[in-house]
């Protein structure tokens, strides 16, 4: 039982548009321990959602391997698929509006478990209880629920097959803060009670700091920094992570951005091929070398690593 829940090794995903190739995920390796939460953070175009889909077998890998509970898959077989499930941002578009909740929850049970109708209904009642919904929710339609309740239904469906890994792609991003926190607490409870491991994909660093054990920061398809979530948040080493954290609006008028540096410009065209560091074009401390040579992976004090030419002589955090 020492195999990690999920392991990605040198994973790349490419898309083609005409003759052009877009490398959405570039040589990503990561390891999710059982019962842990690994957060993947990044802005649009960072490749975090493509990575989620690659990890669950929804898009083919161009290279690299994915191992689930120690077993490699390229296309997950049915008996593997039940161990890893996805939850998306918008539960309204992932639930069938014309089906009652009972049939949405029954579907994975029919596909993956051979249960009698009676046992299936018992299991559905159990699932609804697990996610904090009343039993009569089973006979109602998605539109009768609030956004937070719908996300509870989506989570119930995801855990129906008793998976080991849940991939949560911006699963709380569309919710209002008060609802968002209720769902985060639910996820923490489920992780404890069901021994789940999470890949938590998000652009919200405050939420990530709360829920994650480890954080992976992506930019333009590349992992630029990894490490314990608290370390990454408090003393980010990579200039991009630093910029991302300093750009977060702080709910304290006294801390209003004055001299805090702003990241200039926008991410480059995704089709662009970089010889050096992908972030060099926007990086406030980039040198000639950064534009010409791929950056090394450098260990960071406090755990994890940053992929940057300047990190070794540029201590993490405030330097």
């Amino acid at each position: 039982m020492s195999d990690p829940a999920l392991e990605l090794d040198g994973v790349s995903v490419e898309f083609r548009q005409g003759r052009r190739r877009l490398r959405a995920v570039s040589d990503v390796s990561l390891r999710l321990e059982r019962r842990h939460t690994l957060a993947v953070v990044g802005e649009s175009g960072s490749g975090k959602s493509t990575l989620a889909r690659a990890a669950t077998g929804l898009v083919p890998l161009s290279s690299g391997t994915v191992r689930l509970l120690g077993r490699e898959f390229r296309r997950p077989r049915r008996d593997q698929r039940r161990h890893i499930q996805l939850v998306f941002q918008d539960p309204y578009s992932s639930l069938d509006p014309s089906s009652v909740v009972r049939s949405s929850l029954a579907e994975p049970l029919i596909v993956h478990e051979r249960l009698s109708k009676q046992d299936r209904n018992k299991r559905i009642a159990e699932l609804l209880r697990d996610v904090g919904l009343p039993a009569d929710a089973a006979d109602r339609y998605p539109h009768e629920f609030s956004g937070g309740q719908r996300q509870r239904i989506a989570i119930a469906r995801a855990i129906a097959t008793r998976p080991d890994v849940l991939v949560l792609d911006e699963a709380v991003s569309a919710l209002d803060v008060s609802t968002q926190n209720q769902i985060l607490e639910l996820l923490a409870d489920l992780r404890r009670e069901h021994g789940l491991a999470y890949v938590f994909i998000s652009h919200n660093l405050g939420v990530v700091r709360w829920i994650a054990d480890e954080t992976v920061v992506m930019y333009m398809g590349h992992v630029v920094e990894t490490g314990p979530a608290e370390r990454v948040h408090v003393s980010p080493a990579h200039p991009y992570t630093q910029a991302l954290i300093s750009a977060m609006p702080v709910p304290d008028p006294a801390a209003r951005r004055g001299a805090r540096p702003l990241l200039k410009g926008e991410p480059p065209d995704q089709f662009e091929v970089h010889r050096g560091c992908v972030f060099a074009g926007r990086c406030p401390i980039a040198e000639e070398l950064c534009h010409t040579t791929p950056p090394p992976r450098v260990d960071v004090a406090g755990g994890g690593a940053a992929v940057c030419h300047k990190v070794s002589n540029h201590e993490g955090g405030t330097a």
Partner: protein
Amino acid sequence: MTGPVLDIEDLTVGFRTAAGWNEVVTGLSMSVGRGETLALVGESGSGKTVTAMAVMRLLPAAGARIGGRVWFDGGDLLTLRRRELDAVRGGALAMIFQEPMTSLNPAFTVGEQIAEAIRRHRGLGRREAWREAIAAMDSVGIAHARHRAAAYPHEFSGGMRQRVMIAMAISCRPRLLIADEPTTALDVTIQAQILELLRDLQETTGMAMIFVTHDLGVVAEIADTVAVMYAGGVVERAPVTELFARPRHPYTAGLLRSVPSGAKRGLYSIPGSPPKPGDFPPGCRFAPRCEFAEPGCSGVLPVLETAGNGHDVGCLRAGELDLRPEGMAHV
């Protein structure tokens, strides 16, 4: 030039439904002065966007019933005729939205669209308007504005499209800009740029701004004054530092506590969920979720009363509660 730029008195908005009229905004009053940014903050369904749309007269006349007065430039926006309205909107009164792509016409270059607004509201000729459009794009930080003016909306990123919308809005020198979640769809690094841009523009032009958002972090970054909305009404209004340091309404205090701060401490959630329009509870609409509610709270809908320091609050128990955030109790 004294007095508020915009003064909303007792605004009420109802929507027609199969079951009759649903009141979604109730008796809302507030004003914003020159150079001031008023943040209108609330969760989805609180009525903040409907308020902005009602002020702009963007709600369909057939489906919406609007009451009250909205004073702007000496007239009541709610009684203006179509032609008068056209002269004001997009000119002295401008609005930007969350998703700029849906507010831009995909079939015209952005330069043409900005220039059209300038010709219409400032009466300039074609060539002059085009020059002004380029100047406006330049002032919102679009590099190579002369060249980019000839590009179509789809050729811009989300952040750049929002800059285009801002350029269009400010090109006619508005006295009030209403910004409805203008950075919500943007990445944080781009959001930071747009917030800084809006602050700079406001400093140089002195325009007033109503900034609609659900994000308390953004409120802290940009607002001078904050109005907190819940279930169709303003429950609390105060200068921004005052509001964050001494929230006086239990809902505001709950929202502030809900922001994840620090590491693995417990997360606070306001119990339950907001009521739906048409289903507002009697009396104080927050009472069913409020940990401080007393039997009297469901009797009457509290009105905003002043609590000093420019602070207004609509809560029967405001005078006796100390809701200051942890660690600030003795500030």
